[in-house]
C-alpha cells in the first residue's frame, strides 16, 4: 500500500494521540467484522472460510488419515500454507508456517492424544490453508479460520476394538456416522504498537505506520507461547518500552474470551 509522507504522518499522529484515534473509528480493543462459514467441502473432514472486513479471504480444509503411531514418529498434525501470489519459499510464507507449527505443537490444553484411535493407530490430520487475498499480515485471520475448521471437523467413528497391541486388528469404521473431533486450536492475536498505544487487529493503513507489533497466542483462557514481536513495515519500525508488552497481554486477556465465544457460536 503506498501512502504519501503526509498521509503517513497524519496517521501516525492520530494513532499516537491519547486516546488513540484509528482511521476507521474503532476502539483500541475492537476487531473488524468477519464472516465465517464452515463445513462446505463434503470430501474434507472439516472446512472453513473466513472473510475479513477489508476483503481478505482465507480457506482452511482439514483431512484425516489413519497411521500406525508405534511405527512412525511423525507429528499428528501437519500444516501446509499457500498464500496466493507468493512463492512457497518466500520469507513471509516461511515465517508464517514456522509460527503456525509452533502454535499447533502439542501441549496441555491442546493434546494431540485426542487423535488416538486404538493402542496402535491414530489419526493424522492435514490442515491445508489457502489465503486467497490479504491486505495485511494474515496470521490472526488464519488462526481464526483454523479454529473454526477444527471446531467443526468430524472424523470417522471406530467400530472395532481399542486394545489391539497384542492381538492385531485392522481398524474398521462406521459407514456413515462421524464423530466430532472437539479439538480447540489456539488463537493468534496481532497487536500493533504505535508510540505508547496498543491497538488490536491493525488494518493495512495502521500496519504501515506502526512502530512494532506483537503476536500473542491464547488458548483455554490463558496466554501461551509463542509470543513474538514482528515488524509490519520498514520505515517506522523502532523499539518499544517493555511495559507496553505487559499492557498488551492484559488487553488480550480482557478481550480474547469474547472472540472465542463469537467464533464458537458460528
Amino acid at each position: 500500500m503506498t501512502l504519501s509522507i503526509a498521509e503517513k504522518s497524519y496517521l501516525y499522529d492520530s494513532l499516537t494521540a491519547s486516546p488513540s484515534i484509528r482511521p476507521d473509528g474503532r476502539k483500541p480493543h475492537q476487531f473488524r467484522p468477519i464472516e465465517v462459514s464452515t463445513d462446505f467441502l463434503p470430501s474434507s473432514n472439516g472446512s472453513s472460510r473466513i472473510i475479513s472486513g477489508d476483503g481478505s479471504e482465507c480457506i482452511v480444509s482439514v483431512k484425516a488419515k489413519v497411521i500406525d503411531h508405534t511405527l512412525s514418529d511423525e507429528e499428528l498434525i501437519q500444516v501446509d500454507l499457500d498464500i496466493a501470489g507468493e512463492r512457497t519459499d518466500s520469507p513471509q510464507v516461511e515465517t508464517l508456517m514456522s509460527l503456525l507449527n509452533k502454535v499447533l505443537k502439542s501441549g496441555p490444553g491442546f493434546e494431540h492424544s485426542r487423535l488416538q484411535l486404538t493402542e496402535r493407530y491414530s489419526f493424522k490430520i492435514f490442515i491445508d490453508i489457502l489465503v486467497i487475498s490479504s491486505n495485511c499480515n494474515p496470521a490472526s485471520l488464519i488462526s481464526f479460520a483454523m479454529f473454526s475448521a477444527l471446531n467443526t471437523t468430524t472424523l470417522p467413528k471406530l467400530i472395532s476394538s481399542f486394545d489391539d497391541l497384542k492381538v492385531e486388528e485392522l481398524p474398521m469404521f462406521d459407514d456413515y456416522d462421524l464423530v466430532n473431533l472437539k479439538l480447540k486450536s489456539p488463537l493468534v492475536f496481532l497487536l500493533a504498537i504505535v508510540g505508547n498505544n496498543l491497538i488490536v487487529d491493525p488494518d493495512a493503513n495502521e500496519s504501515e505506520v506502526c512502530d512494532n507489533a506483537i503476536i500473542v497466542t491464547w488458548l483455554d483462557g490463558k496466554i501461551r507461547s509463542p509470543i513474538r514481536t514482528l515488524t509490519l513495515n520498514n520505515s517506522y519500525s523502532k523499539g518499544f518500552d517493555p511495559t507496553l508488552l505487559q499492557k498488551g497481554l492484559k488487553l488480550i486477556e480482557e478481550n480474547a474470551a469474547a472472540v472465542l465465544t463469537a467464533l464458537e457460536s458460528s
Partner: protein
Amino acid sequence: MSSTTVANGRKRLSQGLTVTQKVFVTSRNGNATKIVREHYLRNDIPCLSKACDKCSKLVVPDASNKLPVFILSESPQDLKADNIGKHYIVLDTNIILQSIDLLENESCFFDVIVPQIVLDEVRNKSYPIYTRLRTLCRDSENNSTKRFIVFHNEFNENTFIERIDDESINDRNDRAIRKTSSWYAKHLKEYGINIVLLSNDRLNREKSKLETSTDDEDNTYITKSLMQYIDLLPNADLIKDLVPNFDTFNTTAAKGETLLAKEFTFEDYYSTSRIMGGLKNGSLFQGNIQISEFNFLEGSINLPNFKKPVLIVGSKNLNRAFNSDQVVVELLPESQWKAPSSIVLDAEHYDVNDNPDNDDEEDDGILNPNKNQDAQNMLSDKQRRLLAQDAILAQKSNKNHPTAKVVAITRRSWRQYVGQIAPNSVDKQVGGTQNVFVILMDKCLPKIRIRTRRANELLNKRIVISVDSWPADHKYPLGHFVRDLGDVESSEAETEALLLEHDVEYRPFSRKVLDCLPEEGHNWKAPTNINDPQEQAKDPLLKNRQDLRDKLICSIDPPGCVDIDDALHAKRLPNGNWEVGVHIADVTHFVKPGTALDAEGASRGTSVYLVDKRIDMLPMLLGTDLCSLKPYVDRFAFSVIWELDDNAEIIDVKFTKSVIRSREAFSYEQAQLRIDDKNQTDELTKGMRALLELSVKLKQKRLDAGALNLASPEVKVHMDSETSDPNEVEIKKLLATNSLVEEFMLLANISVARKIFDAFPQTAMLRRHASPPSTNFAILNEMLQKRKNLSISLESSKALADSLDRCIDPKDPYFNTLIRIMSTRCMMAAQYFYSGAYQYSDFRHYGLAVDIYTHFTSPIRRFCDVIAHRQLAGAIGYEPLALMHRDKNKMEMICKNINKKHRNAQFAGRASIEYYVGQVMRNNECTETGYVIKVLNNGIVVLVPKFGVEGLIRIENLTSDPSSSAYDEIEFKLSFMHGESNQTRDIYVFDKVEVQVRSVVDPVTGKRKAELLLK
C-alpha cells in the same frame, strides 16, 4: 420446462433429471476415506407391467436404441386366500439369498419385481446367486412362466429415499424396499393388481405393517414371510419341501418346554478386523483346505512359506470347513502337533447311529483331540509369529507335523451336491415332514441334514440338494432338497449324478449358440476354387489359404471315430528329404472370438468322454461334420508342414491354413494291416510306411532325451450292442500305428508352441509339466528300498526313466508296470498356462522332456487348442489375433478354467469307467490277482490290474480278531491272525495276492462298490 419443486438436498438439472449427493466412509486396509458421490434421478423409469398404460407413454430408448420391454403379466396369479387376489411379488434380499432354488422353480413365483437395491445387496453377499438371479431376469423375455424384472428404485425420482441421520445402512435399504412396494401399490391400484412384499426379516415386516396401517388407502400392500406366502399357494405341499432349512422352524421342542442346553458347539469365527490384522502381521494364514480322501476328519492346507501342507485334525479344528473352501487358519501350540493319521475314516461309516433330530453330543477322543483350548487365547500375535517359525523348522524333519485350526471361512465352495438319503435315518412310521440325513457322493464331505415330507418316497433315489448353512451349534450342516434324478443304479440317474458332481455342463446348446453356426448347416461345402472372386468376396480370408488337395492325406483314429481332428501325409522331395504334413481340423474358421458359440466352448473347456456317452464341447454339426476331416470330401484345415531328413531332423517348418481332401480314414488296425501288406505299393501306402519309420526315429530321440513312458490302468468296457449292458472289460493294447500318430502330434504341438511363443511372448497358450519334488517320491522310494532293494532316481527325467526301467522283478513281469502306475501318481499334474506367467525355464514339460509345449492337435474337443489355433493364425499373419488372447488377465482366467475343466473331465471319465466296471462285476463274481499298493493301520489297499480297480480291504474283513493286528510302518507290514488255524499272516506292500472280487451294495449308504476279499 416443468418447475415442480424438488425435495430437500436435490437439485434439478433439466426436465426429468435431478441430482443428489451421497457421502459415506469406506474402511479399506485400516484406512478411512470419505467418499462423495453424485447420484442422478430420473422420472421416466417404467413399472414394466403390461397392464399399465401410463408408463408406456413415458419410456425412452436406451443407449442401443431399444425400448424397455414390458414383461409383468396383465393377469397375474390370483390367490383367493387372505384377499390377495391378482398380485405381483416384491422380494427382500434375504429371500433371494436363502431360497434361490425356489425362485427358479417353475411351479411358483411367476411375476416378480426385484428392486435395484436388493439386486445390489445380493451381488455384494453372493456373486453366484446374483448370476442366477440375473439369468432369471434375462430369460424372462422368452419364458412363459417366469417373469422377473429389475426395478431401478434407486434411480427413480419417486422411490429414492435419503438416509435419515443415525439410520443404519440396512434400515435405510429396508425402507427403500418398502417405499418401492408402496409406490407400486399406488401405481397399479387402478388395474386391480395388488403387491405382496416377501421378507424373512421380522423387523422389516413389522415396520411395513405399521406404515401401511397409517398410510392412506392407495398405498397399501401386503407383507408376508416366505412360509406364510407358500402356505397360501394352491400347490403348497409340493413346494414346502424345497423351502430352505435355517432351523428357524425347529419343531423338536414343544412350546413351553425348555431346550436342553446344547453342550456341543463349534468355536465362533473371528471378526473381520481381527482377521485382516492377523493376516497382515503374519499371525494368521489364508489358503484352500483339502480334505483327505482316506480320512474325512483330516484336512490339509498349502500355505506360503511352509514346505509341506499344514494339517487340520478333528472336527472341532475343522470348524465346519468343507473341502476346497477358502479358509483362514491359526497354528496350534506345539503340544498339539501330530503325525498324519494312518487310519481310514469316512463320513458314511462314522457316527452311523446319530439321530438327525437332536445334536447333543458327548465328547469322544477322535472328534476332539485337544482338551484345553484356554491356553490358546493367551497368545499374543508376537508369540504366534514365533510359533509359525518353529512350525516351518519342524516341517523339515518328518517327525511332528504342525497342526492348525480354522478360525474363519472367507469363501465357501458350496454348490449343488448329489447324494442319497441314508436309509437308517428315515423313520418309516412318520408320514409328514421329518429330518433326515443325506450322504453325498463326494466322500470328503459330511452328511447334510434336510427336512422333507417325501422321505420314504425318495429313499432309493439319487437326489440333488443344496447346502444352506452350518450354524455353530449344529453338528451337521443344514440343506434342502432341490430335485430328484431317478433311481439309484439306473444308468440315467448315475450318469446325470456323475456329470453334476464333476461340474460338467451337459444341457443342450442354447438357441443363441446354435445361431452362430453357418446357415447352410450340413450342406456347407468348401469352395472348389480358392481363387474365385465371388468366393473371396464372401470370405475375404480365403486368399490366405493354400490349396493342398493334391496331397495324399489320410487319417488314423480309433475304430468308430466320427470326429476326426487330424490327418497326415508324407512325400519324398527331389532333394531326398521328406515333406511331412500334419493337418488339423480348422475349427477357428467357424468359432470366432466373442460369439456365444465361443463363450460356450470356453466355458465347457473340453469334451467329456464317458463310457457310453460323449458330452461335446462344440455342437455336433461342427465336430462330426463341418470340421471333421472326413475322407473323400474337401475340408478346411490348419496345416503344419515340415521338411525332415532321413533321420527325422527338422530342416524347415511352415504353417498355413489350407483346403485338403483326405483319401482314407483308417482305424489303427486297418492302417497297421495296410502298412504290413507287402502287396500294397501305391503312393499313399509308401507315404504311410515312411511316416512309420520316421515316427520310430522320433520316438527314439525322445526316449534318449529322457521322455517318460508311464502307464495307467486303462481299461475299455465292451457294451452289448443290443441292450447296452456292459459285457466285458478289456485292457487297451498299443499298436505301432498308435505310436505313429502320437509322435507326429507331439512334433506338431512342439513346433506350434515355438511359433506362437515367438509371436506372442507374453500371452501364448502353452502347457507345462513341473518336475516332481523329491518329497512326492519319498514314500515310494522308501517302500522300494525296504522291500525290493531298488530305488527311483529323480536327478533328471532321463535318470527317472532309466531307473524305472531297472525296477523289475524277475519273477513277476507285471511288477514294472505296477511301479510305473504308482509313479504316475507321484507326478505333478500338467497344466495349461500363458507364457507371461512363468519364465522360459519353467515352460519345461518334464514327462515329454521338451522345453516348450502346447496343445494344438485336437481343437474339436479341447479349448486350449482353439486358442492355440487363433494365436498361430495371428503369428502367420492369416488373421489378426483378438484382443482377449493378448490380455494377460483374461488369459489367466481362461487358463484357470480349462485346467479345472480338464481335471473334472478326467475324474468324470474315470468315475464312469468305475461305475460300469462295477456293473460288469455285478454279474460275474471272480477271483483275480491283485497287488498291495498301500498298507495302513486298519487295512490294505489292493489294485486289481484286470479291472483297473483298486479297493480298500479293512482289517475287520481280513481277520476275525482286529485287535490282534499289528501295523509296522517301518517295514510297511500289516500282521493279523488269519483263518481258523490262527496263524499270523504278514502282508507287505507290493505283495501279489489273490482276491475275490464282487460288487456289493453297502447297507449303510446304499452305494454300490467293488468289494475285495483276501483269499
